[in-house]
C-alpha cells in the first residue's frame, strides 16, 4: 500500500475506511492510537487490584465469586489492549512491569481506594458504566479494525458488570441506604470528572479526526449521565445533577470542576477550580496509585529474579 499523508489518511477514514495493519498508518495516527490504547489497557489493568482490594471484605462467598469473575474479565480486557499494543511495536513488558506508578494512564478515580463491598457495587454501576460508554463508542466507531473487533467481547462483559452494579444497588437500597448514598456522594462526581476536559478546552481532537473514537468528551459524559442519574433517582438516592426539559440534557448542579479532599474523599462543591488544577491532581495521582501498581508488578519482579538465579 502506498504511503499516505496525514490529510489523505483522515479523508480515507472519514469515508469509512478501516485500517488493518501498521503499514497503512501515518506516524501521527500510530502515536495517537498507541496513546488511547494505553489509557484503555491501563484502566482495565488497574481496576483489577482496585476491585480486588475491595472484594477482600465481601459479606458472602457468592459475592466473592461474582467480584472475582469481574476482575478476571477486566484482566482479559487489559490483555487484549496490551496484545494489540505489541503488534504496534510497543514493548509491553517494560510498559506494564517497569513503568513508575505515576506514569500509568488510567483515570484518577481508580487511584482512590474502594473500602467496602458497597463501594465496589457502586463502582460497577458508575465506573464500569463509564467504561461501557467510552468503549461502546470506540466499538461502534473505531477506524482500527483489530481493536474494534476485539471490543465485541469487552462490550458484552462491561454491560454485565454495570448490571451487576445496578442489581446490587437495587437489592441493597433498603438495607444499606446511608452507605450507598455516601458512596454515591464521592463516586458520582469522580466519574463525571473522568470524562475529562470539556469540548471547548480539549486538545486531543485528533482522536476524533482519526475516528479512534466517535463522540466528544461532553457527549460521552452526557451519555453516562443519561443512564446514571435515572438509576440513582429511581432508587431514591440524591445526585448532584438533574434533567433539564428545555434542553433535553442532564445538567450538573455544581460548577465542573470542583476541588476534591482526597483524605476525606469529599467534593468541595463550593470551591470551583480550573482544569489545570485537575490535571495537576491527576498527574500527581491518588492515594492508592503506588499500592495498586505494586500489586501488579511485584510478582513479575520476583519471577525475573528467580529466572536470573537459575
Amino acid at each position, binding site marked *: 500500500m502506498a504511503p499516505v499523508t496525514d490529510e489523505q489518511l483522515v479523508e480515507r477514514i472519514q469515508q469509512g475506511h478501516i485500517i488493518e495493519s501498521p503499514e497503512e498508518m501515518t506516524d501521527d495516527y500510530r502515536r495517537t492510537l498507541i496513546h488511547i490504547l494505553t489509557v484503555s489497557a491501563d484502566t482495565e489493568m488497574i481496576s483489577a487490584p482496585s476491585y480486588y482490594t475491595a472484594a477482600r471484605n465481601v459479606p458472602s462467598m457468592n459475592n466473592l465469586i461474582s467480584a472475582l469473575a469481574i476482575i478476571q474479565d477486566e484482566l482479559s480486557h487489559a490483555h487484549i489492549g496490551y*496484545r494489540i499494543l505489541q503488534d504496534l511495536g510497543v514493548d509491553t513488558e517494560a510498559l506494564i*512491569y517497569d513503568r513508575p506508578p505515576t506514569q500509568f494512564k488510567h483515570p484518577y478515580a481508580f487511584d482512590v481506594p474502594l473500602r467496602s463491598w458497597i463501594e465496589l457495587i457502586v463502582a460497577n454501576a458508575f465506573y464500569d458504566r463509564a467504561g461501557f460508554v467510552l468503549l461502546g463508542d470506540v466499538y461502534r466507531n473505531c477506524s482500527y479494525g483489530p481493536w474494534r473487533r476485539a471490543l465485541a467481547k469487552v462490550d458484552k462483559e462491561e454491560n454485565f458488570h454495570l448490571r451487576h452494579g445496578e442489581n446490587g444497588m437495587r437489592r441493597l437500597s433498603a438495607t444499606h441506604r446511608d452507605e450507598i448514598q455516601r458512596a454515591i456522594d464521592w463516586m458520582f462526581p469522580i466519574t463525571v470528572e473522568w470524562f475529562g476536559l470539556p469540548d471547548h478546552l480539549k486538545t486531543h481532537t485528533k482522536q476524533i479526526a482519526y475516528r479512534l473514537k466517535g463522540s466528544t468528551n461532553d457527549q460521552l459524559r452526557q451519555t453516562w449521565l443519561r443512564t446514571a442519574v435515572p438509576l440513582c433517582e429511581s432508587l431514591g438516592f440524591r445526585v448532584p445533577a438533574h434533567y433539564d426539559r428545555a434542553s433535553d440534557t442532564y445538567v450538573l448542579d455544581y460548577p465542573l470542576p470542583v476541588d476534591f479532599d482526597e483524605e476525606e474523599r469529599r467534593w468541595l462543591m463550593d470551591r470551583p477550580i480550573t482544569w489545570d488544577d485537575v490535571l495537576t491532581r491527576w498527574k500527581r495521582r491518588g492515594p492508592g496509585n503506588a499500592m495498586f501498581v505494586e500489586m501488579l508488578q511485584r510478582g513479575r519482579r520476583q519471577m525475573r529474579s528467580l529466572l536470573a538465579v537459575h
Partner: protein
Amino acid sequence: MKTIGEEPVYEVFARRVEGEPLRHVGCVAAPADALARVYARSIYDEESWLEMYVVPRRAIIPVESVRGEAVDAHV
C-alpha cells in the same frame, strides 16, 4: 532461556454452535502451545464455545493480503 514478554503469538479461532463458521476471536502470546491453549480458554471465555483452536501466527501464510509482509512481524 527465552526472555519473558517476547513470546510468539497465537491466533484464536472458535465456533459457538454447529453450522456456524469457525471465527477469529482474538490472539494470545505464549511461550509454548500448552500455555497458549490455557490463555485462549481463560481470556476468550465470553461464550460457551463448542470448539476452540489456537494457531501459531507464523504458520499463517498470506495469499491475498493488504499487508506487504507476513501477518506477524513481531515473532
